[in-house]
Each structure stands twice: as C-alpha cells, then as structure tokens.
C-alpha cells in the first residue's frame, strides 16, 4: 500500500497531510503589512483544545535547533496539540531586516503567531514555548493570558551574548579558523555596528536590546502557570535552573519542572539524526502531560515517527 503524503498548494500557502498520522502541516506567510512572518502550523486530526506557540532561538542556535524543533512540533501535534512555529522578522524565510530585529519585534511576532494560531484552529488556550533566548519573547508575550514553557533560557541577555561569543570562538578554533576573542568581538561591535557569529549577523541594535534585559524584565508581574525544562549536573538541577525556579516562585508563579535527560548542544549542529534523540521525545511527553493531554491518542506511539 502506498502511503505518500498528500499536499495542497495555493498561491500563498501549502499544506501537507501526513499519510501515516493524518497530521496537517500548513506553511504560509502571516500578516497584512509590509513585513510578514513565515509560519508553519501543525494540527492533528480531530477536535483541538489547546495550542503551543514555539519561540525559536536566535543566531546560530536557530539553525542548530531547527530540525529538533521540527521533530518536537510533530510530536506535540501527535499528542493532540496545535503547534505554531514561525521565523522572527529579519530571520529565516520571513520579511524584514535583521537591522530591526530586537526583543520587542520578537515579542510582537510571537503575539502575531499566537493570534494566527487561534484564528486558524479556534483554540483559546495557548502556551508559549520559549527555547533558549526564545524564552524572552515567550515570557513577554505570555503576560497577556498565556501559559509559559521555558526551555533553558539564559537569566540575562548579557549571559546569552557572552555564550554566543564564546561558542563562536570554540567552533572556529575547533575548525582551525583564526578567530577574535570575546573582547575583540565586543570592540568590533562598537566600531562596526555588527559582528559575525557563526555565519549570523549580531547587530549592535540587537546586542543592545539583549544586553539591557533580563528574563525577569520579560516575565512581568502577573503570576501564571509555567513549565521549566531544565538540565541537571551531578544529579542536581543546574544552578541557573534553581535560580530561575526561585525567581518565578517568589513572584507567585505556579512552577513545574521537567529534567531533560540530555542537554541539547544548541550552539552546534549534531550530525546524528534529530529523530533519534530520546530527549526530544521526553520533552514532548512532558509538555503534553503538563497541558493535561495525557489521554491523547498517539502519545505512546509518538517515538517511532516524526
């Protein structure tokens, strides 16, 4: 029996229906203005009660994480969730200039993606899943009635930038390419308005927007249900995860934690197939469980096909 997917394409969107699972993936450009978002929505067959908007990481982490994000989105949809992914303006396949990309534009894009998800699927309950620095727009966007899932966000923008610089240096050195030090990159940023980090442009505008913010700034004061996806070291939560948990609980957030079996090497592209990584399946199960979707039809079978 042939099980080829079916696809339907119109002028501005394309739909793939998975022959095996019935999952629907719809790719489209969202927005009416001059700068539209590239967006991809995953919906399972049947009635929908909740959705997840995925706020991806930035810079080289966007590429390094992308396929894992695809696998995760398909797994979540198999658990019965509607999933909305998108590329921030100025990145990927979206419109816009990287010169205008900053935390505020990222938050606007996350909100626009959530609106599109609600409009297209009818779901009212939406959680924002922020991966690494994607946790910042997720935290800000969820202030207005959303739930929040944070996957290993940096506590401050300054820490994120430092790690981005270091990762660039490490990868270049591993590849035998002479590279600038973190201090030299900082200086170059001040002098030239941008630097290259693993093939991606970090503009001074984005740098300044990140450096001046903390995750606390993004969270606001409204307590909400939050799931932390964290990592352990030597059998204990990593210090930054503990700190984040304490910070959220101090503000009255209802916090749950799931510990990832293995940390994602998010600055680097792994050569193993993302489909094979058990930690992605673990995260999907944890999110579905947290959203009270344990009863969903495909949960147990989801580890074999993505």
């Amino acid at each position, binding site marked *: 029996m042939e099980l080829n997917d079916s696809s339907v394409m119109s002028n501005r969107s394309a739909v793939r229906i998975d022959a095996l699972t019935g999952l629907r993936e719809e790719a489209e450009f969202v927005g009416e203005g001059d700068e539209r978002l590239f967006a991809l929505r995953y919906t399972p067959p049947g009635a929908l009660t909740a959705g997840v908007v995925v706020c991806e990481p930035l810079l080289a982490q966007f590429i390094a994480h992308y396929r894992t994000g695809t696998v995760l989105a398909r797994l979540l949809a198999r658990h019965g969730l509607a999933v909305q992914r998108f590329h921030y303006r100025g990145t990927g396949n979206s419109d816009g200039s990287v010169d205008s990309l900053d935390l505020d534009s990222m938050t606007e894009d996350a909100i626009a993606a959530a609106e599109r998800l609600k409009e297209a699927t009818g779901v009212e309950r939406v959680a924002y899943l922020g991966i690494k620095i994607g946790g910042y727009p997720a935290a800000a966007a969820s202030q207005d009635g959303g739930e929040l899932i944070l996957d290993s966000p940096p506590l401050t923008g300054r820490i994120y930038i430092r790690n981005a610089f270091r990762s660039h240096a490490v990868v270049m050195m591993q590849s035998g390419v002479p590279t600038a030090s973190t201090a030299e990159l900082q200086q170059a940023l001040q002098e030239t308005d941008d630097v290259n980090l693993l093939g991606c442009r970090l503009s001074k505008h984005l740098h300044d927007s990140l450096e001046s913010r903390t995750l606390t700034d993004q969270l606001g004061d409204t307590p909400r249900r939050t799931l932390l996806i964290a990592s352990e070291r030597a059998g204990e939560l990593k210090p930054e995860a503990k700190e984040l948990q304490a910070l959220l609980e101090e503000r009255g957030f209802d916090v749950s934690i799931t510990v990832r079996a293995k940390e994602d090497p998010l600055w680097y592209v792994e*050569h193993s197939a993302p489909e094979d990584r058990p930690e992605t399946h673990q995260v999907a199960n944890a999110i579905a469980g947290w959203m009270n979707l344990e009863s969903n039809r495909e949960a147990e079978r989801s580890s074999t096909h993505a």
Partner: protein
Amino acid sequence: MPDAPVVTTRSEKPVYFSSGDETLFGILTEPVVAPRGVAVILIYGGGHNVSAHVGQLWTRMARRVAADGFHALRYDHHGNGDSTGRAEVFDHRTPFVDDLKAAVSYLQEHEGIPAVVFVGDCLGARAALVAAPDLPGVKGLYMMSPMVYDGRMGKEDEWAESYSTGHYIRRALQWRTLKKLTDPRLRRAALRVATSKLKKVTRTASKAFGRSAPAASEAGVEVSSNFLVPLEQVAARRIPINWVFGSTDSERRGEFDAALAGPLARLWENAEGVWEISEVTGRITVHPDLSAQNDLVEDLAGWLQRIDPVS
C-alpha cells in the same frame, strides 16, 4: 546602475514536492520583472540546515535573482528543515541527488519552468555536479567552495584527522571510553570515527607505497572519480560553471588550484570562456563570513547576467 527592486514574501510561496517516499519543503520566489523561464535552485551542504540557510543567505540570494527575472527555489533535503525523512550522514559520495532531481521535476511539471541553474554550497555543490549530467535543462552551475575529493564532511572525519592513531588507541583502552560505548548513539559515532581514521591511514599508506587511491591522482593531487566523471560530462555539454571560493579559504582553494594544474588541466583548457573562478571576501567554509555572504549575493547576480541563461 539602478538598485534592484526589493523582493519580499509577496512574491513567494511555500511548496511541497515528493522525492521518493519523502515530502520536501521549499519556498519558491517568483520574479518581479519579466520572467526569463529559468529557475535558480539553491542547495545547501552538510549538517542539518534550513531552507533559508545560515544568515538567510539563500533567502537573500533568491530575492536578489528574482529582481532580475529568475525564479528561485530554496528547499530542504529529506531529514532537514521542514521536510520529512531522516538524515544523519552527510557524505560526498551520496550527496542528496534524488532530492535535487525532485526539485527540478517539481519546477518543470508544476511551475512550467524548463531551465535551471544550480547554486550549491559544499556538499550541495557536489549534488549539483552529480545531478547535472542527467538533466538537459541545466544551464549553469554556481559551485561554492566545492571539494574535489570525497569525505571530510562530518564531525567524525574531522575528529579522525585531528589526532594521531596512537591517540585513538590510547583513548579506546580507557575505562571511560568503554563505558560510553554502552550508549548506542555514541557507539555508532565511535565506529564512524574509527572507520574514517582507518580510511585515512589506508590512504596515507597507499601513497607511501606508491599505490594510487581510487581516484585521479597526479602529482599528489587527489580528485575523486565521483567529482571527475560528472564534471567531464558537464564539460562536454559546455555548461557554464562559476567556481567560487572565499579569499581566506586557502586550503579548499589550494586543493582546487592543484587539481586544475593536474587532473583537471585538460578540462580547464577546453572550458575556456565557459568556466570562471570567483573569489569573495572572507570565508565560505565552516560558517560564511558576513562579507562573504554579501559578496556571494551580488557575485551570483553578476554571473547570471554574464552567462544570460535562457530556457
């Protein structure tokens, strides 16, 4: 020269097309001036990637050439980006050729575009070269940082070349290493490193004992038959090629220049006026510099104007 018109998502549409049992995802950019009936297909290289490519390089290239009347298709290989399937091997001997041919079929059958120009980056350049002889509609190859020999694509090959054989033997005998081998994924990775190292040692030994490797080899320059055979066929059809290197990618460029002076010399002479070599500022390999990316966008547009492909 007037600035090229700005192209946005208003001229783009997402597409799906079949490649065997898999469904591939892509974005088709339509020209904003009179269409030439020629599509530029953008093919990234190894390591999991996404249709926009690093730093939006493919997005920018697609929109740039659309301003000059070309269609452009950027797509994900199976197991990459938003396509279906799985991919863990990025090998110059198996460079996702079927996916590229599927992209060509999609353009011909669904969009009515008969002629194509391939833009390939590293492993993508190899895919372009291997696919071209079977496809009569190919009008040009833009080969970014191509490798003339096979392999050295994955992490395992880099690791295999990074350390001595003695280092690996000592590592293999450590308790920590043996414990790691209980993990099936680490076991597979270790096997790939060991295989790569063994191949490297065998190749070195072959040279030392005067035996040629299974590829064209002159004056110590190795050119894989997987590179040479399709290139001879492409050269026979006088398909224009632009060989593009970064100004600081001296190793990759040096290997190519040595090949031109050796096994590729005859082809190079016959290709006068059809092949050219471009250099962009900075680095294309590993992670392309911002300067190289900017140069590539304009270099591609300029080369397309020079070769003026028609359907």
